[in-house]
């Protein structure tokens, strides 16, 4: 696990139950997140990694878990 994914996991740890994170469960389809989570997550990713997400990045497979999010960040950098 690299630094990007670690930071993402730290953020996710504040918002989702520990088992969802440990088992890399699908955050959105698993229903682990609250109504503001998508906004908060996009804000976090953009600010923390100085990237700008665009309309083509809005795919659920990018937002599945910390690994897919880290890949999204690396692609956007």
């Amino acid at each position: 696990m690299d630094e990007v994914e670690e930071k993402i996991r730290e953020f996710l740890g504040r918002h989702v139950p520990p088992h969802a994170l440990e088992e890399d469960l699908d955050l959105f389809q698993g229903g682990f997140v609250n109504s503001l989570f998508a906004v908060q997550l996009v804000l976090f990713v953009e600010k923390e990694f100085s990237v700008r997400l665009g309309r083509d990045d809005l795919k659920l497979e990018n937002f599945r878990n910390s690994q897919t999010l880290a890949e999204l960040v690396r692609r956007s950098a």
Partner: protein
Amino acid sequence: MIEAVASTGCLGCLAQPEPDFQEYFRWSRELGRTCQSQRTAHTVHGMASHALYRWGEAELVQNWSGFAAIAFSEAEAGSDLSRVSTRAQPSEGGWVLSGSKRWVSFGQSAEAFLLLAQAPEGLSCFWLPGDCEGLRRSPVEGLLGLEKSQTADLELSDCRLPSSHLLGQPGWGLSLLGQEALTLGRLSVAWGCWGGIEACLEEARTHASLEHQLVRRLVTRMAVALEATAAVCQTAARAYIERTPEAPVKAMMAKLLAAESYAKVATDAVQLQGAMGCTTERVAAQHYRDSKIMEIIEGSQQVLEDQIAGLL
């Protein structure tokens, strides 16, 4: 009304690739001092413009100019937008939208709408041009306040949109685009309340006699409310401009406190001025009516109380 707002230059704050949020909030406060209907035009246009510039296809953005409003609420989906039932069906090269929207501020005159509809993938945001065939507008009359906000209900009968009029991706309409727009709207409303409180306090100090202890108590309370509102508005705006993940929650808190303070201050401003406070010769009466609506729009106290607790 929209011409008057446009002439200030405020409508361009967010309708550009590099949005100027500080200026947007500053105008919300400025217009909130003098006319909350104008402030509403500024608020909804900013919400819609920001979504378009952030998530719209380049061609759609480049070809757009005009005044845009927000069409989220429905008869059965006000406090809970997840219940939106306006349908968006994919059809050859685009979408077909059908359903009805309620309480659309400036719905009588907007040239486009940021509209929330249910697509097969979930709630999605669309850019609906005001001249789209199948769109019918019915004015809403008799509002308690914000009387000049040109409110309308919308009826959509098979409104056809090209695929480029979907903003973002299907399914992200409420969770991301809608929540982003609401966050911006809540901040703008909160700053508008700040301006309204300033106007009420100014008038009360001018017209009420501070020789009376009871008057001094009320004026002091108004001044404290102003300080608290200013602080919470600035904190929430800073969080938003710095793009911190806490920004949406802080916007909710700011809106909750600012609107409640505004309603209390406006009530006291009328009370302090007695019969004169009940006339159109004083601004307090207008603020009294507008503030009640501003407690309700963009999330009532009860909705926000319920949501914030789960987000701490």
